[in-house]
């Protein structure tokens, strides 16, 4: 009976040690920080959806999710000053899909340290555009576009148009 209890205790300790080791291994294997690349690519990343299925011929809502790189902001769809470039989503003609409308999120107020009196209307972090699309029947690989202009607190990148690839299935 005592031997069985001892064996049980040993087994229990072994289990604890195994789990603890596995935990620390998991942490180490994922803790490796990637090499920091300062190559300038996109300030805005399209997240999802990659594919949507909508009823053919009917305006259907499609929520498009984007992410803005940390420390950057882009002008909202309705910037407060005329000289600022608004964020605009578009769908090319003859892609089998028409953009019937797009609802943009409201911008958040933002001020540059060099001019705390002027409020800008911007997007930061993740944002979603609620598009209404009309598709003809069939499978359409749409290369939609998002035009934006990004800045950080002291400098601005040139305006950019990125491709937003969406596989739209009209049923």
């Amino acid at each position: 009976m005592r031997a069985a209890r001892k064996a049980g205790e040993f087994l229990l300790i072994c289990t604890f040690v195994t789990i603890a080791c596995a935990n620390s291994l998991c942490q180490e294997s994922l803790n490796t920080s990637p090499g920091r690349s300062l190559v300038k690519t996109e300030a805005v990343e399209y997240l999802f959806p990659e594919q949507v299925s909508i009823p053919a011929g009917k305006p259907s809502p499609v929520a498009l999710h984007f992410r803005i790189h940390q420390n950057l902001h882009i002008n909202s769809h309705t910037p407060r000053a005329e000289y600022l470039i608004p964020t605009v989503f578009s769908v090319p003609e003859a892609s089998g899909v028409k953009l019937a409308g797009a609802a943009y999120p409201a911008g958040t107020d933002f001020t540059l340290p060099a001019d705390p009196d002027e409020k800008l209307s911007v997007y930061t972090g993740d944002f979603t555009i609620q598009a209404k699309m009309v598709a003809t029947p069939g499978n359409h690989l749409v290369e939609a576009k998002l035009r934006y202009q990004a800045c950080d607190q002291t400098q601005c990148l040139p305006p950019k148009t990125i491709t937003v690839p969406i596989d739209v299935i009209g049923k």
Partner: protein
Amino acid sequence: MKRNTIVIGITFVILATFAWAGWANWMYRKQAAEHALASASRAELIPVTPGDVPDGGASLTGKPAPNFTLEDLSGKKVSLSSFKGKPLLINFWATWCGPCKIETPWLVEIQNEYGPKGLQIIGISTEGDDLKPDDKEGWAHDKTAIAKFVKEEHMQYTVLINGDSLATEYGGLDAMPTSVYVDKDGKVVAMQLGISSKEDMEAHIRKAMGEGQ
């Protein structure tokens, strides 16, 4: 017997908790690592201090300012060499750039104050749209926007267009504003990316003018 069952039960709960904690921790770190990897390949404006240039652009400080010939809004060709012997502030800006809009009044004041002492500011519009020479509509659109900006901001110093064509020579011009301070011998004494303050700009100008050395 009952005691053994309780001990086994408690042991099982503890083990299950450990296993769950390990799994949750692994999932969290996996997601964090994926996010970090994704972030590493995304765009980043590099924080700068006065005088710095980004990794992507070669520093011009200490080197002769690259010569150029650009047009002004009236179509007249203007070369950097025509300002030989003058301390210069070459300011690359764009009509869509908020920080440029903030610093332009400072530039106007600086030109008024230091102009009589010999300083010349050259504002070079750099719209970032890489227009082809034969894109008449594009150039007309750009010129209209630039002229409007120049008028609204009372820019009475030299303004040239098509700064994009100087990107290679001037360190990439990846972001606006970019200011290059040149002494009377044509040597770049400082290069500043982004907006800082009027005081910083004046300090660089005094350096370009050979004051306080």
